[in-house]
């Protein structure tokens, strides 16, 4: 087994795939994390990220996979699950070696795994489209903090850009410490090192628009009023809105 180290990026991952073929690495173990290289991996291979190599792999894959299949691969990558690159590599190897499309062969463990992991990421994307709660600041910025299970900011970008085309907004992922910002023209990645605690309301005092509190009060009231007490079903409530998301939800805080 040979350790293949790449830079942890989506572009870098495909360079890794290219080099595995280029150097005929028979039994690779791909890792994007800087790990302490122990004696077992004395023969580790360091990938040099190269756009041309990446482009070639992607072009080839686009011939072998449907757009849906390719986007499943991307979502799986964004899961950041441990050693997921190796499942992805086996999936890619299978796809490249086969004449016909393999992406629906759910009897193959890697194909099934890829399908299942990408679905989990997709679900998280959908949840974030639902659970983002913007707060309006004095300088007319709609600002939200999220803490998603997976790295879904790249996936939700388009949804928010299309929907909120006429307002400036920023969505910040506290776990991965970066955000996406829309300036009325385009969305860009931003990394801000917040030196205050996002949960600490007092550190925000004074930055909000004067109407912000009113609409939060109204939303909380609405949320309370639409509930039907006679139908209480806490289990279902929590199943749909898991507790780990509550701290950024106005109505559950």
């Amino acid at each position, binding site marked *: 087994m040979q350790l293949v180290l790449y830079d942890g990026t989506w572009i870098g991952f495909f360079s890794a795939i290219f080099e595995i073929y280029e150097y005929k690495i028979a039994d690779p173990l791909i890792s994007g994390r800087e790990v302490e290289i122990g004696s077992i991996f004395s023969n580790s291979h360091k990938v040099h990220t190269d756009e041309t190599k990446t482009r070639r792999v992607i072009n080839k894959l686009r011939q072998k996979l449907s757009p849906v299949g390719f986007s499943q691969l991307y979502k799986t990558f964004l899961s950041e699950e441990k050693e997921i690159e190796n499942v992805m590599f086996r999936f890619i190897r299978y796809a490249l070696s086969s004449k016909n499309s393999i992406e629906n062969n759910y009897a193959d463990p890697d194909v099934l795994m890829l399908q299942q992991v990408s679905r989990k990421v997709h679900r998280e994307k959908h949840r974030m489209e639902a659970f983002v709660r913007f707060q309006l600041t004095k300088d007319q910025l709609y600002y939200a903090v999220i803490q998603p299970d997976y790295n879904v900011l790249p996936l939700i970008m388009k949804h928010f850009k299309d929907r909120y085309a006429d307002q400036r907004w920023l969505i910040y992922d506290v776990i991965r410490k970066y955000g996406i910002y829309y300036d009325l023209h385009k969305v860009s990645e931003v990394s801000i090192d917040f030196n205050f605690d996002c949960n600490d309301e007092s550190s925000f005092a004074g930055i909000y628009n004067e109407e912000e509190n009113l609409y939060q009060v109204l939303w909380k009231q609405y949320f*309370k009023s639409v509930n039907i007490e006679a139908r209480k079903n806490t289990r279902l409530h929590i199943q749909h809105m898991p507790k780990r998301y509550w701290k950024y*939800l106005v109505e559950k805080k």
Partner: protein
Amino acid sequence: MNTDRITEKLSILADAAKYDVSCSSSGSKRKNLNKGLGTTGNGICHAYTEDGRCVSLLKILLTNVCIFDCAYCVSRKSNDIKRAAFTVQEVVDLTINFYRRNYIEGLFISSGIFTNADYTMERLVLIAKKLRTEHKFNGYIHIKTIPGASEEIIKEAGLYADRLSINVEMPTEKSLALLAPDKKRIDMIEPMKIVKQAIIENREEKKLFKNTPIFAPAGQSTQMVIGATPETDLEILYLANGFYKKMNMRRVYYSGYVPISNDNRLPAIGTPVPMVRENRLYQADWLMRFYGFEVHEIVDKNNPLLDMDIDPKLSWALRNLQVFPIDVNIADYKLILRVPGIGVQNAKKIVAARKYTAIGFAHLKKMGISINRARYFIKAGNEYEIKDWQPSEIKHSILSEGASKYKPNFSSQIPLF
């Protein structure tokens, strides 16, 4: 804006609107092409209430003042409750500000009937018009059609709304006459026909002229209260089936009656909400819409009531054991869909995967299929149940595996009258 007053109004008018169960915000593909605000797509539930229902739209009444006296409704005129009314501008501001904060997908506006049907309906349409034209709002708008509104105003509503709905309220005319003496069924059926016709004409016109404005892209829906009156599931599902087939309804909603009145025509306060029955009706509804079942396969003269302890698909399978076992490696997709424990997603997966290799029970399990339920009905290669199970044994065995989440509030369909 006076915070306390507006908060109070919102609490009254949201509370009165919550018995309308529709929360759907899908089925319309409005794009934000004018660099305005909002899009519609597959529908998003932004929150879930403590009773587990989806909150997708700002669902409010314009006012709970009502000249009608429908026994099942909290806003009936004889009910001694606080009344309130929003102004058109207040509804517009609430919608826009909630939407901009990503709280909602849009607005579901309904109202008690004041002055007359057209006067009320005009106010609702005005809200939608303001949102669309003054605020370039492309989010979802659901307008409740007021029974008896004129064709002209209904047609105007469809130009701004994504969905129109009118509630049939009761499964039979007899019950409606008993509980809602001011309403006539024809006042509900007529608007449905108008909307249906307008949608058909609009879609035809759109084929010829691309820039024809779209009329109610998410179609129409309706709702009936169940458990307040003695109708059987047979009557309810046949009515629903008629709405799907003849009125092109997108959805029929079933609202388990929540006792809110001491009126002796209705179940007493404290009677449990028929939640299991409501759930079974939705399952049956899904079978008709997504699983290729005909209504007579789900309920018939000999089985006018849905089973409360098992779902209607399992119930059908047990009555039709001669159809099984179905071989998952060769059976038609439509037949695989009929296997208890296999849903639409999994049926598709099976049909896709079997092109590569013969499917066994182990594959099915990994795909997430509930083998404990499906195993009595399927065959995969040489894997199948050897024992000749009787329907009652299968039912018993499946039921003994898991405790129903509904067990504590089982309220079977006890004849009321």
